[in-house]
């Protein structure tokens, strides 16, 4: 089961939970209105991390890319029984539980196992699937490895922080365990002989072996408890009415053995359609979407970041009077704080933290977070640029009767802009690359899209090479355009 717990995630969770306690606009109030809320809006929003076939993955259905897999089938069943429409929201696995707690999604179905630790923060349904673990190896090594105990002196790979990872460490001796965040990367490591086996769930192992002739699966023979291998639907804490209703659907799924009889074979079909053509050209639409969102985020963030940067720079240069001193102090604190915290945390904070007050879509949150971040850096460039303009320019303008504002706008800022243009250009190009960070909240920009293509095609390197070239084309074009304007501004 996927059970990645990253330190900053835990921190963010506690921060968000703290804010939840302060603000009264929480997703789960004391009274349980979970069921009526879903029924009233007519949709059931399911959060999932679609990089885990056959549980959930991206597939092209009737020319359109969508999330499919057995978990989606489970979600559809629950929604149908409730008489509402299912809406699938993609995001990274790390973000799922926060999304649940902040009301971004109504439930999480993502191959998640109901561990005691998770039960403290969310409510789980009955389990809808009981799996087991396999170890994927290179086909050529088939005779050498039998199960987990055959890897003495060798290396097994597993998803970092997952149950597989912990159990591989606990239940083997003399074996090195290598952790990586994505299964696609692990398979790549396996094929390049950096590791000798990858521990993963049986259905996933079967999917990989079916789609890659070079691979084979062997039983793991791990000694596991039921809660480590079962999958459940997660709901926000206290939404008992909704859980009870979902349990009825889950029990039916179990009784009729729907997962094995219907859902998994269906998912298998999608996997096949997916892997019929693993050429990168086949996925040009996915990459195009990625470019589109990368550009939208970058251009919007540069625009708003610049405006914010000018305001911050002017505030930082203000002097005299309580108000101006206060503003200067605030702007300085803001710049220092933003520069002193990772952009990734800022993105998550805006999406989940601000999400408690206003429900912002992921794209908007991403643009806001990156603009706020960029503004702090741009402010410093602009401040330097303004200081680089000779004070005689200001004096000349003021002596002509121009106000302080007009002097800044018509005389100082245009010259400052010219001086800092190369730095601003750098910032723009950095943003094209750094915008990739919003992939963690599920905005389908280039990195996010490439991850989807990777898990769809079971090809580890090709999509990376493609986006590398795409990023370079974007940044190179941008730097040519910036150079053109730089030359146009040269008068001396």
């Amino acid at each position, binding site marked *: 089961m996927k059970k990645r717990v990253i330190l900053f995630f835990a921190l963010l969770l506690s921060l968000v939970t703290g804010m939840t306690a302060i603000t009264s606009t929480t997703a789960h109030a004391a009274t349980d209105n979970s069921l009526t809320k879903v029924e009233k809006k007519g949709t059931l929003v399911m959060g999932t991390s679609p990089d885990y076939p056959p549980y959930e993955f991206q597939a092209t259905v009737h020319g359109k890319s969508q999330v499919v897999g057995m978990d989606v089938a489970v979600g559809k069943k629950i929604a149908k029984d409730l008489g509402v429409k299912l809406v699938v929201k993609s995001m990274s696995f790390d973000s799922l539980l926060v999304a649940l707690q902040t009301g971004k999604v109504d439930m999480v179905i993502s191959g998640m196992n109901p561990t005691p630790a998770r039960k403290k923060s969310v409510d789980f349904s009955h389990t809808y699937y009981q799996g087991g673990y396999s170890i994927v190896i290179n086909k050529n090594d088939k005779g050498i490895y039998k199960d987990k105990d055959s890897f003495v002196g060798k290396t097994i790979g597993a998803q970092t922080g997952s149950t597989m990872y912990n159990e591989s460490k606990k239940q083997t001796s003399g074996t090195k365990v290598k952790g990586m965040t994505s299964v696609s990367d692990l398979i790549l490591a396996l094929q390049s002989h950096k590791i000798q086996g990858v521990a993963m769930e049986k259905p996933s192992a079967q999917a990989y072996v079916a789609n890659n002739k070079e691979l084979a699966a062997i039983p793991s023979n791990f000694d596991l408890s039921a809660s480590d291998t079962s999958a459940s639907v997660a709901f926000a804490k206290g939404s008992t009415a909704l859980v009870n209703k979902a349990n009825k659907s889950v029990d039916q799924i179990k009784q009729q053995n729907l997962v094995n009889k219907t859902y998994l074979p269906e998912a298998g079909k999608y996997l096949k359609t997916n892997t019929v053509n693993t050429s990168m050209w086949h996925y040009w639409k996915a990459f195009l979407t990625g470019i589109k969102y990368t550009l939208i985020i970058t251009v919007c963030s540069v625009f708003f970041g610049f405006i914010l940067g000018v305001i911050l720079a002017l505030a930082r240069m203000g002097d005299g009077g309580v108000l101006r001193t206060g503003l200067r102090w605030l702007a300085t604190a803001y710049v220092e704080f933003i520069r002193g915290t990772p952009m990734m945390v800022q993105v998550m904070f805006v999406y989940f933290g601000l999400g408690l007050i206003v429900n912002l879509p992921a794209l908007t949150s991403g643009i806001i977070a990156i603009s706020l971040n960029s503004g702090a850096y741009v402010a410093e460039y602009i401040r330097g640029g303004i200081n680089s303009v000779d004070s005689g320019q200001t004096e*000349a303008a003021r*002596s*002509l*009767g*121009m106000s302080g504002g007009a002097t800044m706008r018509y*005389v100082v800022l245009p*010259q400052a802009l010219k001086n800092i243009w190369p730095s601003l250009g750098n910032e723009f190009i950095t943003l094209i690359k750094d915008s990739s960070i919003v992939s963690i909240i599920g905005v389908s920009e280039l990195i996010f899209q490439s991850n989807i293509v990777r898990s769809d095609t079971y090809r580890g390197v090709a999509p990376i090479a493609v986006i590398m070239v795409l990023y370079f084309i974007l940044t190179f074009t941008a730097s040519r355009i910036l150079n053109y304007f730089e030359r146009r501004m040269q*008068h*001396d």
Partner: protein
Amino acid sequence: MTKPIIEVKNLAKSFGKNDVLKDITEQVNPGQVIVVIGPSGGGKSTFLRCLNLLETPTSGEVDFDGQNLTTLDTKKVNELREEMGMVFQGFNLFPNMTVLENIKLAPMKVKHLDDAAATKLAHELLSQVNLDDHADAFPSSLSGGQAQRVAIARALAMNPKVMLFDEPTSALDPEMVGEVLSVMQELANQGMTMVVVTHEMGFAKSVADKVWFMADGYIQENNTPEEFFSNPQTDRAKDFLSKILM
């Protein structure tokens, strides 16, 4: 008796512990050309910059056209600055604009002239300083003398009542001093009120109505040029003149 256009009362200015201007009380009448001379570091530039409040006086009063600038709000000061053109030692042309744009900027942004009117005005002024053929040049391509003449045209574009000159020829090569001084002389002949800080004694002798000799933060002498140069009263002035007039 004519009312003075500039009246300075007990003006003092210090930078930290350094008292640059100590106690200055003088007045300038409309149409007068005042030349301020004196040794370097005597406070001449600071005095000039106090007249249009580019420097805020530490104490005392600067009255312009009957209004005490030191008590007015920023908006009113901006309005009165329009009427006091200033020309700087370092020209301070806007390097990112053409000559024409340099002159048009303030009339358009402050007086809200339309583009056609501002362009017409700029061409007239450029003709007046004999530079109309350089209208589309950028300041970096001008010689010092040309740049300073553009700066004078720029200041004149606001139709000021008074022109302040802060060592307008000090940064120029010697062969360019003449062209700037002749533009200034022309202005004086047209009746412009001028306060000029300069080291050009020839200009002071031939153009000034009054010479103010400034040293140690005071105006030590205020006299006609004939009287001042032939018959200085103070030892400070005698000493200064003996050094510059061989």
